[in-house]
């Protein structure tokens, strides 16, 4: 009766969000006196899964799985869960998680909490777990009533902890003869930036206060110096100043980095909904009445066009002294 965790590889390594999920699942397994088993598609080095707490790794084997198609994956994970006797299955609440976790939940009739932010509280038959609701304005405690349970963990809810554990890695042949997905992938456009916004620890974000796309050079430079990903407010994406995958907020993506630096963003409630889970928020705005200051830890009132270049210099100096 192990706890099963779905994990993914990106750029040859186990994804950070997957390691978070394995940490999470192995804590839960310990609480239930059992062990954590990770499942993964692909042949990359997965020693990190053992370091994160998995005792066993099942490499799901079937040619149909290469594109991580939702219908095939659902069936594959179901087969692995059955073989492992797992009644709790953990995902990261990322792209695949959003597609596959609810699908598998419906198939298994498993109660699901999507986007959990805390460890579950388990006592006797009661199993509760917290998740953000109202776009980060509140937190709800969910009770799962069914025997089978699925939880997808909101990325960046817990720091990754790697120990010196090792996992037994075994191939797990999956039978997908009865499943036929009609989805055909035509083209994949990966954005070229090194850093993925949802995974990023540090984010530099800018809004309409930057006046135009030609002024993003300093935003990118500040981000580069900090090793941060870039993000933007909705109007900036709507006007095509920045690509739409950078749009954060209620109608964009929700992020919760360690540090969020907002430059020339007013701090509308819909924007805050996507970033208020950030650990530390810095606001740089020329209007001292900008609402964002009410949700900030640190603020600078002033002109971004003067402050940002000085910040870049300050970061360079800071790095040189480290």
């Amino acid at each position: 009766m192990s706890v099963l965790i779905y994990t993914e590889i990106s750029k040859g390594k186990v994804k950070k969000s997957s390691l978070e999920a394995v940490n999470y699942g192995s804590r839960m397994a310990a609480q239930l006196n059992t062990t954590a088993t990770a499942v993964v598609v692909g042949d990359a080095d997965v020693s990190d899964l053992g370091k994160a707490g998995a005792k066993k790794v099942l490499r799901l084997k079937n040619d149909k799985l290469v594109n991580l198609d939702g219908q095939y994956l659902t069936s594959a994970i179901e087969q692995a869960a059955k073989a492992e006797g797992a009644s709790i299955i953990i995902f990261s609440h990322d792209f695949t998680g959003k597609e596959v976790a609810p699908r598998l939940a419906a198939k298994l009739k498993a109660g699901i909490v999507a986007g959990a932010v805390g460890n579950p509280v388990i006592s006797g038959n009661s199993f509760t777990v917290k998740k953000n609701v109202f776009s980060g304005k509140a937190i709800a405690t969910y009770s799962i009533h069914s025997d089978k349970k699925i939880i997808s963990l909101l990325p960046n809810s817990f720091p990754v902890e790697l120990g010196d554990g090792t996992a037994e890695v075994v191939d797990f042949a999956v039978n997908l003869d009865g499943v036929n997905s009609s989805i055909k992938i035509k083209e994949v456009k990966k954005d070229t930036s090194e850093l993925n916004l949802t995974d990023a620890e540090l984010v530099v974000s800018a809004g309409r206060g930057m006046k135009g796309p030609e002024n993003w050079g300093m935003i990118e430079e500040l981000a580069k110096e900090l090793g941060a990903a870039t993000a933007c407010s909705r109007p900036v994406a709507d006007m095509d100043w920045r690509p739409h995958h950078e749009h954060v907020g209620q109608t964009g993506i929700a992020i919760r980095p360690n540090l969020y630096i907002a430059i020339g963003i007013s701090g509308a409630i819909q924007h805050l909904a996507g970033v208020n889970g950030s650990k530390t928020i810095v606001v740089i705005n020329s209007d001292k009445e900008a609402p964002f200051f009410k949700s900030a830890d640190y603020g600078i009132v002033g002109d971004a066009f003067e402050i940002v270049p000085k910040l870049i210099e300050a970061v360079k100096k800071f790095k040189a002294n480290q």
Partner: protein
Amino acid sequence: MKILVCISNVPDTTTKISFTNDNTTFNSAGVQFVINPFDEWYALVRALELKEAQGGNVTILHVGDASSEATIRKGLAIGADDAVRIDGEPNDAFAVAEQIAAYAKDKGFDLILAGKETINYNGSMVGAMVAELMGLPFVSLATKLDIANGVATVEHDIDGGTEVLECALPLVLSANKGMAEARIPNMRGIMAARTKPLIQLAATGADKLTSITSYELAKGRTECKYVDASSPEKLIELLHTEAKAI
């Protein structure tokens, strides 16, 4: 082409959130409810554009009680042809998905659209569940959708980029920003909405697998600490020594 758009009834994005009954119930007093933005702006409007270009019918479906009727009428005013309300409590994703699947299974829809997530419970679950219950393919977070000769071409967000795929209909998908632009209903639409069919159906016995036992408000921040604009290096120092963020 027959299109079903699933719509949810949610508090307006500017709502100040509070709870009653010892923090077990969302306080809806004085709250303005609207169609979930992802369902309205992207799913419904794209469905209407496809219908206008290729012919067909757009039905909106809502699981909820009679208090959602204004929201449903708004969807009709924007242009949906007819509406169905299943009189159930929309408080568990699986139970909602079961209602939708039970309704849709013998209606021959070519496309079933949902929004990316609701802005109140942020689950991102119902579309995928409906697809599973109906044995259909599902595409999440679609930002573009075109249909030709019974095949959908969809662009959708994936980890660190986008992917273009093709899928024969029928198909379930969840709509993300980019699929369409919001439409404001005009006077004629609002008048027409009053007489468009809105069918009410009893809920079938659905299985509730989760429930919310309590709520709490997200913690606010303590005071903002201001750094003088003339010395931004001070900020870097504070981020390092105090916030330990860099």
